[in-house]
């Protein structure tokens, strides 16, 4: 024991950050990895083109969006350990079950078509043929896996970490968020090369095993719902490892807008300001994921360079989110959020400049400047918004209903993204270019910038309102 005198143990919360990082690493990685399974699975089952798989992924996205508030509610009711562990178990089992994809002896083939006839929009198309294997994929990936991954998402991990950290909330949430980005960067090529070397069934098995054999035991061993469970205070203020100790004060004081009933949050402006801005975040990021490469190719950029620029943008994610996380614990979070949205607005201006210059003056800047400039600016702001939004939500509304509120705000993000992709496609068909949909998305960003700047953080955030209370609580220990 002598050698431990004067040396403080690592605050338990940092182990929660590590467990959260790895949980997001495997859950996001497993879902991101689905892209590499598309071609080999399609070759085996002959689903008749990408539309069928698009439908599966579309169902998965909508399920993931719709279930977020419910999962958030479950989090508030049963705690992080239960929801995250059960979700990891379900996610792992489903991922392994994906390796068994087959027709299950269901030998049917039902043609599915769509017929839409609006004022200016007409669509009459055969979509795909529903087979047993496709039904299997819709149920397992589209419904079960997409719902389970919602339980190991930014909603639950951010909510959990918000209970463990108060002063360092910004950097902690950012570190965990980076796990999702790094997971995609490592697990996607892992799955791709495993498919190349063996078979797609082995790759699903491996991804599922990571979840069941690595992430689940880690969560069960480490994740605890709040600092009080291990006799500590947020940020390790007390650092008292004895859970039975009575020499401690209770956790974080109530946030200015904390209410018993989560529905009361709808009555205050910050909820709508944050949700509205996050809706725009969904609009402006997901539209790019879907349409960036084709847009760049329209400008005369090769598919390879466009893909490289997109990859570069994704790679900047982790850098951007960590830098913003560090800054957000020192400066006003709403101002940083506003600046991030404004940077993304500038990125969009850069993106549409060549097209509009060509339309107006018949001459333009080189498209490569626009594509790479956009990739740099947008990459830095790409996933910097989730930790800022979640930490502001916790600062303003407290941690009592944090899961439900994070879930609702995230649902706004996903719905915004879904609508933007569909509408951008429609506008492209009407105008023949991406400039108009991208310009509209860019204008939305100005609204998000204003909404973020207008959050009255000084009045509503616990950081500004209750700092003395925290200080005295820490002192009493």
């Amino acid at each position, binding site marked *: 024991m002598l050698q431990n005198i004067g040396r403080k143990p690592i605050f338990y919360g940092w182990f929660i950050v590590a467990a959260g990082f790895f949980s997001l690493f495997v859950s996001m990685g497993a879902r991101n990895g689905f892209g590499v399974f598309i071609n080999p699975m399609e070759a085996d089952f002959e689903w008749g083109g990408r539309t069928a798989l698009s439908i599966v992924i579309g169902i998965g996205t909508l399920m993931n969006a719709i279930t977020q508030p419910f999962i958030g509610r479950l989090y508030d009711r049963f705690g992080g350990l239960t929801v995250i562990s059960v979700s990891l178990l379900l996610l792992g089992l489903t991922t392994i079950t994906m390796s068994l994809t087959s027709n299950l002896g269901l030998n049917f083939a039902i043609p599915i078509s769509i017929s839409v006839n609006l004022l200016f929009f007409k669509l009459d198309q055969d979509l795909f043929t529903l087979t047993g294997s496709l039904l299997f994929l819709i149920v397992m990936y589209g419904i079960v896996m997409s719902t389970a991954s919602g339980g190991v998402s930014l909603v639950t991990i951010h909510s959990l970490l918000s209970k463990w950290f108060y002063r360092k909330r910004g950097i902690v949430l950012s570190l965990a968020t980076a796990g999702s980005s790094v997971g995609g960067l490592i697990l996607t090529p892992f799955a*791709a090369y495993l498919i190349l070397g063996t078979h797609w069934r082995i790759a699903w098995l491996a991804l599922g095993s990571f979840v069941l054999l690595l992430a689940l035991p880690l969560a069960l061993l480490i994740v605890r719902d709040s600092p009080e469970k291990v006799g500590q205070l947020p940020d390790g203020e007390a650092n008292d490892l004895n859970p039975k100790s009575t020499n401690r004060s209770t956790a974080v004081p109530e946030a200015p807008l904390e209410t018993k009933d989560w529905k009361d949050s709808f009555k205050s402006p910050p909820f709508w300001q944050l949700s509205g801005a996050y809706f725009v975040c969904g609009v402006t990021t*997901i539209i790019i994921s879907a349409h960036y490469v084709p847009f760049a190719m329209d400008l005369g950029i090769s598919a390879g360079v466009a893909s490289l620029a997109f990859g570069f943008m994704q790679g900047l994610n982790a850098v951007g989110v960590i830098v913003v996380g560090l800054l957000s614990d020192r400066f006003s979070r709403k101002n940083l959020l506003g600046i991030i949205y404004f940077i993304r607005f500038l990125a969009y201006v850069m993106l549409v400049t060549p097209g509009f210059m060509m339309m107006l003056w018949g001459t333009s800047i080189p498209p490569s400047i626009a594509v790479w400039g956009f990739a740099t600016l947008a990459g830095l702001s790409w996933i910097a918004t989730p930790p800022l939004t979640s930490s502001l939500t916790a600062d303003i509304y407290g941690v009592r209903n944090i899961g439900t509120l994070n879930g609702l705000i995230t649902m706004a993000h996903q719905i915004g993204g879904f609508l933007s992709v569909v509408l951008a496609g429609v506008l492209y068909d009407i105008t023949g270019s991406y400039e108009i949909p991208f310009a509209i998305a860019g204008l939305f960003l100005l609204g998000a910038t204003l909404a973020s700047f207008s959050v009255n953080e000084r009045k509503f955030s616990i950081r500004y309102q209750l700092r003395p209370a925290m200080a005295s609580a820490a002192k009493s220990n």
Partner: protein
Amino acid sequence: MPPLLSVAAHHSEPGDPRLLAWLMHLLDSFIGLGPLTIVIVLGLIVVSIPIGIIAVFLTQRAKYNS
């Protein structure tokens, strides 16, 4: 890439297969290792993360609970 295939690629959705294929080609040309070698290297990285976390966690618990 059809729109629905790319929906929500922001936080959790499948990567663009065309981008992935292109990146794999790039990695192959730089690294020049076989697919299974890359799988083993990446797999070891993945496994080492939770093992490292658990090792530090258990060491600290043993140290401060004694």
